[in-house]
């Protein structure tokens, strides 16, 4: 592009981002890669049938975007929805069969008696001509996106038998400005990138956000004290405390599945080792003891730890018990493997894999035993920091486009990818939350 045109384009982009409301700071582009084998579902627009103001949220649109993003579904475009049934009695199966739809979701939005809304919805199996679900869900006017995500979760679970993870959140770090004006923010947003909220700001680097299993706290690393320190912050009260500020590196923390312990990498002994801190007593247990770099501990569901170590020369993923012992190597493909994320059932491990100058997200499926089966999930050159959704259906990761960091969500089969871009700044270090408490 001509430099001047490029400059103008950047200015226009900047203006556009100023003009757009915070609401638009979500997933900003359509599907990058499609999935031919996805299930077809028609999400019929859900009419407002109440007597006050219609909700700001288009519930059907949010559900449709959720289901599409999962890679498991392909929803019928609005313009192809020729009939608009609002409930089961209006269903004409023949129409949907002709449109090659496997499922139809219909619903309507009503006023609830407490000043909010009530969405009644029904899910139909077109081939079986059967109603699969008939439920109602209430929400405050400003929480209608939450309601929509929860309906998408219900649909996902009913059809696939796996709990949906749309009503979850993501944490990530943004950096804006240059030089002395650089500002880092730890953010939390809905799983689709909408409703970004700032958790903490700093003029120094923030990184390594990690969710507590109840989703109420974030542990993270901040350089605000000069050196790296690990903080835990309560997301409801905003209160935070330093849990590790030893000499050297304090980084890469991870809450244990029971939330009582925090694994971390500390270099207080002279080089980075894995430790586990009992959060009640603040007692540390040293897990690794090796002159190599040991960092990025991640808990497996059965309470062991995976971590990154270059004890074999280059960084690779290893596994060890929470009290130490001899680590065993997990990753046997790729010159460089780091930043493991473990699926809820422990069967899959995604990681940043480097071969030459190319860094991509690789998935190791260990369910069939042996050293496992590998699949590449991402196509970039600088892809890093993978984080599994709590149902392991998708992986969130960071990459660079131009000189700007962006996040992508990719389905765990690698077939559907979607980009999440914030209106300004550089985005990195994504961490997908656990399930929210219903």
């Amino acid at each position: 592009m001509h430099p001047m045109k490029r400059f103008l384009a950047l200015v226009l982009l900047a203006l556009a981002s100023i003009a757009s409301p915070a609401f638009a700071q979500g997933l900003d582009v359509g599907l990058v890669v499609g999935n031919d084998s996805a299930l077809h579902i028609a999400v019929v627009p859900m009419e407002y049938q109440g007597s006050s103001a219609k909700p700001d949220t288009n519930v059907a649109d949010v559900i449709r975007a959720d289901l599409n993003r999962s890679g498991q579904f392909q929803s019928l475009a609005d313009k192809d929805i020729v009939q608009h049934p609002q409930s089961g009695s209006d269903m004409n199966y023949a129409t949907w069969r002709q449109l090659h739809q496997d499922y139809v979701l219909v619903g309507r939005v009503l006023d609830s008696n407490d000043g909010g809304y009530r969405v009644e919805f029904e899910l139909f199996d077109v081939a079986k001509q059967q109603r699969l679900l008939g439920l109602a869900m209430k929400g405050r006017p400003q929480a209608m996106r939450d309601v929509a995500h929860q309906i998408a979760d219900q649909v996902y679970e009913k059809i696939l038998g796996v709990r949906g993870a749309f009503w979850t959140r993501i944490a990530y770090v943004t950096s804006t400005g240059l030089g002395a004006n650089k500002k880092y923010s730890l953010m939390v947003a809905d799983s689709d990138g909408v409703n970004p909220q700032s958790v903490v700001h700093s003029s120094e680097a923030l990184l390594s956000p990690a969710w507590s299993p109840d989703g109420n706290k974030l542990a993270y690393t901040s350089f605000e004290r000069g050196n790296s320190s690990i903080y835990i912050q309560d997301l409801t009260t905003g209160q935070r405390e330093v849990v590790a500020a030893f000499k050297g590196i304090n980084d890469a923390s991870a809450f244990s599945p029971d939330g009582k312990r925090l694994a971390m990498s500390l270099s207080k002994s002279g080089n980075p080792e894995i430790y586990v801190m009992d959060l009640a007593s603040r007692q540390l247990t040293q897990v690794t003891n090796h002159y190599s770099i040991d960092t990025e501990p991640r808990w497996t569901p059965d309470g062991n730890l995976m971590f990154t170590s270059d004890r074999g020369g280059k960084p690779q993923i290893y596994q060890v018990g929470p009290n130490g012992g001899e680590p065993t190597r997990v990753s046997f493909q790729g010159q460089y493997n780091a930043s493991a994320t473990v699926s809820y059932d422990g069967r899959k491990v995604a990681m940043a894999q480097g071969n030459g100058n190319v860094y991509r997200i690789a998935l190791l499926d260990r369910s069939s035993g042996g050293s496992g089966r590998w699949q590449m999930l991402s196509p970039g050159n600088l892809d890093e920091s993978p984080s599994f959704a709590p149902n392991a259906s998708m992986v969130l990761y960071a990459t660079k486009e131009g000189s700007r960091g962006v996040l992508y969500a990719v389905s765990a089969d690698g077939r559907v990818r979607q980009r999440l871009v914030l209106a300004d700044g550089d985005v990195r270090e994504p961490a997908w939350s656990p399930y929210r408490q219903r």
Partner: protein
Amino acid sequence: MKTNKTVLLVAATCLALAACSKKNVRDDTAGHGTTGTSSDTTTTTRPIGNSTGGRFTPSDLETNECLRQRVVYFDFDQDTLKPEFQAVVACHAKYLMDRPEARMTLEGNADERGSRQYNIALGERRGNAVMAAVRGSGGPASQMTVISYGEERPTCTESNEDCWGKNRRVEIVYSAK
């Protein structure tokens, strides 16, 4: 590693004698970023101390050709000090010895590739490597601190080898001169 030790010994001996010539001092404006292309064309024969051959003073940090060099560059995923930086390490070691009140922070950095967390560890290793070399040249450990920023403080933000080379560095920062 054996070679490095030898170089260190030689450097230390030079310092003890405080009179031998200094090689491999390079003009910082040449940019040490690109790896494998270091042609030491700027070899000089000036003494390691200041122009009067005595103790370093804070003003030498701005004027002395060797002390003005405060960035040490590394190869990808490496923390081995390259021979061309031994002279820089040696004059900063002498500065610390001459100025017991001086305090030095060695800020370790890495390029953007791979894990940010691993890169913080890598930056620390590089900082430790420079600290060990300064100590090897007689600089007291008590005057030095290592801090790693990993890939969080790039000086160059493009994704190419030239930029990466500039970011894989340890910066020598005097918190007290």
